[in-house]
């Protein structure tokens, strides 16, 4: 079973506007360890896709921020996590059954511990 991480972009990722603390390297590391990754942001879905492609990352999903429930229904995972920088991110994540981390909390990559606790 997989773990799924959804990243907000602006204010959360280093290439957001404003830049956030989550680096492309962290995202890449999570993907290499088998996490399902993608973004749920207010940027157009087509623009999100282009932003990831420009960084040579093939994400599993892109969607508008309020489409988190749709992402949850599309992917089967042990845990669903959304990382963002706004109360709205938190609210939408929790309503969709995602765990939520603030952007600054995500910088420590706490999801890496999930692998240990789930024997990964």
């Amino acid at each position, binding site marked *: 079973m997989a773990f799924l991480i959804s990243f907000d972009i602006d204010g959360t990722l280093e290439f957001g*506007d*404003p830049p956030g603390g989550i680096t492309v390297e962290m995202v890449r590391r999570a993907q290499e360890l088998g996490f399902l990754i993608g973004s749920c942001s207010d940027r157009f879905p*087509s*623009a999100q896709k282009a932003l990831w492609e420009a960084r040579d990352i093939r994400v599993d999903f892109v969607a508008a*921020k309020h489409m988190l429930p749709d992402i949850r229904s599309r992917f089967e995972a042990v845990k669903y996590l959304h990382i963002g920088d706004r109360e709205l991110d938190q609210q939408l994540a929790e309503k969709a059954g995602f765990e939520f981390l603030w952007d600054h909390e995500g910088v420590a990559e706490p999801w890496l511990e999930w692998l240990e606790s789930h024997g990964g």
Partner: protein
Amino acid sequence: MAHPIAPNSWHRNREGLGIWEGRGKVVATGVGTSPTARRWDERPETSLGALTIIAIRKAIEDAGISPDEIDGIVLTPESTTGVSNDPMSPAPEGFDQVFKMVDFPQAGITRGDIDWILLNMPELKNVEFKMNGPVCMSVALTTAAEAVSRGLTKTCLVVRGWHNLAGRYYVGQGAAALNTSSGPGKYGGIWGMPACATTAMIFEEYCNKYGKSHEMMAPFVVEERRNGLMNPDGFYTQHRPEMITVDDYLSGRWIAKPANIYDNDLPIQAALAVIFTTPELAAHHAQKPVYILNHAQTRPELQGVTPTLAEWEASSDKMGRMLYEGAGIGPEDLSFEQMYDGFTLFHQFHLEGLRFASRGEKRGYALDLYQTDISIEGPNPVSPSGGNSGNGRTRWWHHRDCILQLQGRSPSQIKRKAEYGVSGAHMPNFCDALIWGAGPD
């Protein structure tokens, strides 16, 4: 120092005034636009004031004139519609090392100020006429048009800059973060409507009345982004060259349904300066003169906490009648329309008030028009500049592009011959608008 604003007697706010006395006596020539940014990074050289200076110098250079020739400035001092600093908040460290300061430290940071500009632009040594055009660049433009037509200034800068501080524009900040509410906002604000909700409310009323839907807005929003991405000075071209698709638009998160996030414009930093002068003096300017054929104003007569569809329709109808009366033209003469679009959902109220591209319809036809060819290549170019939606929030891209279109040098130049244009902002019941012509008649 506070500068005067246009007296009420300068307003053309009722019908029956006839042809505008200044018709054909005022022209626009040079245009200067600063670089854009999403937010201020607190460096002096990227401040609102710095951008304003850049825009002014570019406008003067564009007109091919000497700064000595500038004898007037009309400026919009407000530089945001969101959260701003108190005027007496101290400037960031180092700001006063780069710029000379006036009697309030936020000049050049979160407030436009004529005296600050003059202090920091010593080349503008002959400015005698100084007036503020409050709230909106459209007010500054109509004020300057009157001032030039009345001989109060011969070569006048018209200026507006915008700042956008770090953080969210007004969400959860300032008064919105408190558990009490003071000031006039308390009558409506405590219901928690975001800024676009009033427009959304009236748009909903419009859709119910005329049998239209939010989906019908998609071609307009897509076309505006396309036009904006042709503009090298626009925010999206410079920072996010991302085309929106119909699916993108329709997937947008609701802010106040039926307004979604892409019906809202993006706050940015930017400044614009335009040069107004007389046709005689324009003869030696480098750019083709664009004539101002009329201007007009509407102001709300609110009876309730929000306006209604009926008020917006009546007010924008009146605007259309006043503009055409004073300019001596009709809707069939317009080569394009560039009324305000920030929020996208009220653009059609302006458009219908002008009867733009009407085939006899009076109201309820604009969203059908959006389903036809409204591109710059087509017969009815709608918002060829791309407006706020296609370029970022300034409330002046559409004015700027009227000048450029009629000079034949717009980056999104319409294919049909550009002879007459119209621009105005901001709300359908609170609007200053101008009719522009390629010639004096």
